[in-house]
């Protein structure tokens, strides 16, 4: 797999990793190329130890690989393949996730293409898989000759050429036989989230255990205790509903309490409905968390390179701080009234705020907003006050 190192700043890629563990079956739907990833769980699990397949590929071959994955899953069943959905960043956490995934996998499927041939990461993955003596299957997606490195690695192995339908068919059948037979297991009590790293959009890594919740649940007069995912993606709680509202949660914050099947958006939890009807009590937080036009109030939580919502901050609730005010009105007002092209530059900066925000670059958006503000003020001073003084001089001259 090839990780792209700077996806956060250049494209709206999301850093969500969904680990298809052998215990749980997660349907992961990723809107590829879009900026939101949806991690859904299908029902709690029916079978376990189905084994899994790790697919190693370069993100340049995403389309072809995903098609093949579909075909494989049609034969061996859903939720067997582990695949990096996005191009994982190379932070330690993600490397660990990948190592973990390879560890769990029974079969390591390598997609050989021009792109993966030259990828450093796929090589690392292969080397790790061979150290761990995984069953490595070499799949030629493109009809290109083996490079020296891969001749060295795979000289003795069977090479499956995808151009040949019969070989492909044989691979699919073989995969089925190679995987260990499924065993039934009991349905777990607590929803386990997929192994998720660094994304506020998804449930946390450690679900509350049943033990924990049973002691916590029957608190004062029938109040439920809730766990929630804060804006940095960490699991917090348990707290009661009234405390929860002071924590800056939004309608999209994921919450869980004992008795619920899944982490659920707060707006879908009946016990929390009242939170969104009335504003949170002021002493804890001077401003409501989503105040639109005061971007300066929102800067408290470090860097936000998290995935942005589909179009606006509303789409995504508290996951990303609200879009910084882009000062477009001021920029245009200055441009129109002060006849200074500096205002044009302010408008351009305002536009950049939106573009950057959509790509998930909150810090960049904020910088651009500041730039827009600066230039709006400059053009207001130069244009507005300049023409005012000029008018004053001319006017006074006429009067005298």
């Amino acid at each position, binding site marked *: 797999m090839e990780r792209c190192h700077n996806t956060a700043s250049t494209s709206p890629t999301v850093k969500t990793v969904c680990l298809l563990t052998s215990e749980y079956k997660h349907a992961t739907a990723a809107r590829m190329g879009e900026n939101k990833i949806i991690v859904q769980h299908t029902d709690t699990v029916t079978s376990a130890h189905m084994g899994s397949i790790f697919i190693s590929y370069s993100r340049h071959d995403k389309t072809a690989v995903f098609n093949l994955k579909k075909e494989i899953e049609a034969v061996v069943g859903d939720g067997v393949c582990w695949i990096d959905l996005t191009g994982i960043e190379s932070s330690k956490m993600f490397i660990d996730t990948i190592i973990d995934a390879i560890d769990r996998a029974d079969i390591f499927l390598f997609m050989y293409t021009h792109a993966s041939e030259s990828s450093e990461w796929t090589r690392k993955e292969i080397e790790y898989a061979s150290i761990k003596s995984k069953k490595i299957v070499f799949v030629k997606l493109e009809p290109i000759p083996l490079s020296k490195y891969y001749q060295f690695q795979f000289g003795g192995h069977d090479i499956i050429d995808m151009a040949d339908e019969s070989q492909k068919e044989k691979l699919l059948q073989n995969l089925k036989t190679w995987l260990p037979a499924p065993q039934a297991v009991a349905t777990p009590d607590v929803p386990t989230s997929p192994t998720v790293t660094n994304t506020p959009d998804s449930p946390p890594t450690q679900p509350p255990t049943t033990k924990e919740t049973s002691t916590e649940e029957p608190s004062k007069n029938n109040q439920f205790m809730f766990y929630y995912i804060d804006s940095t993606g960490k699991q917090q709680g348990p707290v009661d509903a009234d405390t929860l509202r002071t924590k800056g949660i939004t309608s999209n914050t994921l919450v869980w309490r004992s008795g619920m099947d899944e982490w659920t958006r707060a707006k879908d939890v009946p016990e929390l409905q009242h939170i969104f009807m009335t504003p949170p009590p002021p002493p804890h937080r001077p401003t409501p968390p989503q105040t*639109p*036009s005061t971007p300066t109030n929102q800067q408290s939580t470090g860097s936000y390179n998290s995935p942005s919502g589909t179009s606006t*901050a509303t789409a995504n609730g508290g996951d990303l701080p609200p879009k910084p005010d882009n000062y477009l009105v001021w920029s*245009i007002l200055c441009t*129109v009234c002060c*006849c200074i092209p500096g205002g044009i530059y302010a408008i351009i900066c305002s536009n950049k705020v*939106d573009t950057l925000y959509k790509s998930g670059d909150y810090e960049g958006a904020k910088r651009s907003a500041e730039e827009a503000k600066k230039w709006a003020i400059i053009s207001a001073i130069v244009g507005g006050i300049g023409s005012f003084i000029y008018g004053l001089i001319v006017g006074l001259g*006429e009067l005298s």
Partner: protein
Amino acid sequence: MNSVNKAYILRIGVAILAILIIGIYFGFDPEAHPIFPKCILLATTGYKCPGCGMQRLVYHLLHGEVRTAFSYNYLAVFVIPWILATVVCTCLPHSKYARRMLDRLTNRTVGIVNIVLYFLWWIIRNIYNL
């Protein structure tokens, strides 16, 4: 002073300034009184800027003469309703819909349209002497 107070003071300041400006343009005709801001571009080059006529426009608009008002500056036909809509959306109590509306009103497309119209209007008004 924390940022919340600052933001409130800023808003109140802007509101007072806006009321003051509206008051001045309601009370005084920029054409009749000599002491009003004058366009530097027009004075130095003889070419009108895209904003020329805005003061007279505001004066006539405040006196209900919409047609006369917009004849001073056709760019304002687009800009003024847009600014009003945006200001209203900003002042509305915070809701999902207000926020979404505001996002639509101040998005990238609007910015680009504004820039294009600005330059088009600048050229056209100087050719046809509008």
